[in-house]
């Protein structure tokens, strides 16, 4: 009884099987554990970010070495810089008193000046930006003056501030302040003027007081713009500090560069420039990161 039943099943299955090609068996590569895979993915993403600039750097250094190695005058080749300034490169923390210090201390002194001057320009700049962004008459009265003043180069302010303050340190701070404040003012004003009418209407329907409106709506709405201004401002203040220290003397990376130039130690200047560049980059990233943290969600609608 069982046999015929089996036969019919076979008969039914046979035509279907004839249409299908036999299934090929593929050997799958052995799977890595998830943590290993994550590690590999992370490493390759890191390499994709780091390798191209590293490649460019090596290429430029090689070109520089190739062009300058055979000459004794002009710019020293990378290898010459390494030989001449080994001490300076390897030990940034020495302090022999006076202005004979490692580069770390010079950069730190400059950074302190930037911290003071830039904080002042951030506070005053946001306040003035809010004023000209929210008041038509303040805008008309102040904006043209600001537009002219902001084009004055940082170093042109130095004689004025020296005449006003008589001392080197406050003059340097003022130069940083006056250089960094314009992008903060202008971007804050744009941010305040661009607050969507809907948010303003919400504030009006709720009858928010001017102070409540400022804290609850205006500041958060303008935050992304404010940080754009702060980021440009911090970069400009770093430009200004190096330039103004060159003229003022004392400790600071700007004066260090000027001092080494007077002693014809070009190699040391190149090392200092790398410090200046990396510090400026770090400042920019730090403000950008702070901006992202503070304005999280502000720009999304």
């Amino acid at each position, binding site marked *: 009884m069982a046999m015929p039943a089996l036969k019919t099943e076979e008969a039914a299955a046979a035509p279907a099987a004839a249409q299908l090609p036999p299934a090929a068996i593929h050997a799958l590569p052995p799977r890595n554990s998830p943590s290993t895979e994550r590690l590999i993915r992370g490493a390759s993403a890191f390499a994709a970010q780091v390798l191209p600039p590293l490649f460019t750097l090596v290429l430029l250094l090689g070109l520089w070495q190739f062009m300058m190695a055979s000459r004794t005058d002009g710019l020293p080749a990378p290898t010459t810089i390494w030989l001449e300034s080994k001490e300076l490169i390897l030990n940034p923390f020495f302090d022999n008193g006076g202005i004979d210090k490692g580069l770390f201390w010079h950069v730190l002194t400059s950074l302190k000046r930037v911290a003071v001057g830039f904080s002042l320009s951030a506070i005053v700049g946001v306040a003035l930006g809010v004023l000209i962004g929210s008041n038509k008459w303040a805008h008309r009265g102040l904006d043209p003056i600001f537009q002219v003043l902001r084009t004055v180069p940082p170093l042109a302010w130095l004689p004025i501030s020296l005449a006003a303050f008589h001392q080197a340190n406050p003059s340097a701070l003022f130069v940083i302040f006056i250089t960094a404040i314009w992008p903060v003012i202008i971007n804050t004003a744009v941010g305040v003027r661009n607050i969507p009418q809907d*948010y303003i209407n*919400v504030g009006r*329907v709720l*009858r*928010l007081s001017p102070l409540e409106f400022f804290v609850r709506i205006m500041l*958060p*709405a303008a935050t992304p713009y404010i940080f754009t201004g702060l980021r440009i401002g911090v970069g400009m203040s770093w430009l200004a500090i190096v330039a103004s220290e060159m003229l003022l003397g004392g400790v600071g990376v700007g004066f260090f560069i000027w001092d080494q130039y007077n002693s014809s130690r070009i190699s040391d200047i190149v090392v200092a420039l790398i410090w200046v560049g990396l510090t400026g980059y770090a400042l920019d990233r730090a403000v950008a990161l702070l901006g992202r943290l503070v304005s999280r*969600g*502000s720009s999304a609608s």
Partner: protein
Amino acid sequence: MTKAYLSIEGLGVSFTRGATTSEVLRDVNLTVDKGEYVSIIGHSGCGKSTLLNIVAGLIPISTGAVILDGQAVEAPGPERAVVFQNHSLLPWLSVYENVKLAVDKVFGSTRSAKERKEWVMHNLALVQMTHAKDKRPSEISGGMKQRVGIARALAMEPKVLLLDEPFGALDALTRAHLQDSVMDIHAKLGNTVIMITHDVDEAVLLSDRIVMMTNGPAAQIGDILNVSLERPRDRLAVAARPDYIRARASVIEFLYARHNLREAA
């Protein structure tokens, strides 16, 4: 003559920009009773949004007056809460905080912190949004945002709720859901509602009366239609009723036969 809850009397609005003055509304008269649901319908640019913003107090009146519960409307205020067309939730606040901002402002001096917190949650529950209370507006869908906008407006306990094309930016399914929610809430709370819309079905389904505006400039109220369908209304059951169809037909007739847009013709 009985005094209406909300009355718009001889309202005229014109905007002056430079040397040119444009008249948007002319001699608009309308009374709305307490608990009534009134829709304002008309073609784009007929000044229906202007009319709502006038009642909200967001735009100054040129001539005439708006009187709510015996008081002339001169400035915006929470007793005339607005649900804006594009939700206008503050993106840096969570759903809960958006409603809380309104509740704190309106009831900050009259209710305790605990009562205010419960009131926020109560209103979020009313629009079925308690599950997303800690989400940011950017993390929820358009329909959900509009629900939160409605919760924020309701939380102010307004004398009149102003809806400015509240469902205009939503897809048809979400819109139907929200319309049902608004009908439920209206049935439960008995709010006085003025809603701007350009959707004929929406107007007929939701409203007690439909105010039809003529085309601008100098738009006026062309006609007012009473929708006598009893509540609660079920969108499926109502759609086949002859009085629904008649109401719908007369609004369409007004909009497309009597006051068609000239440039569209």
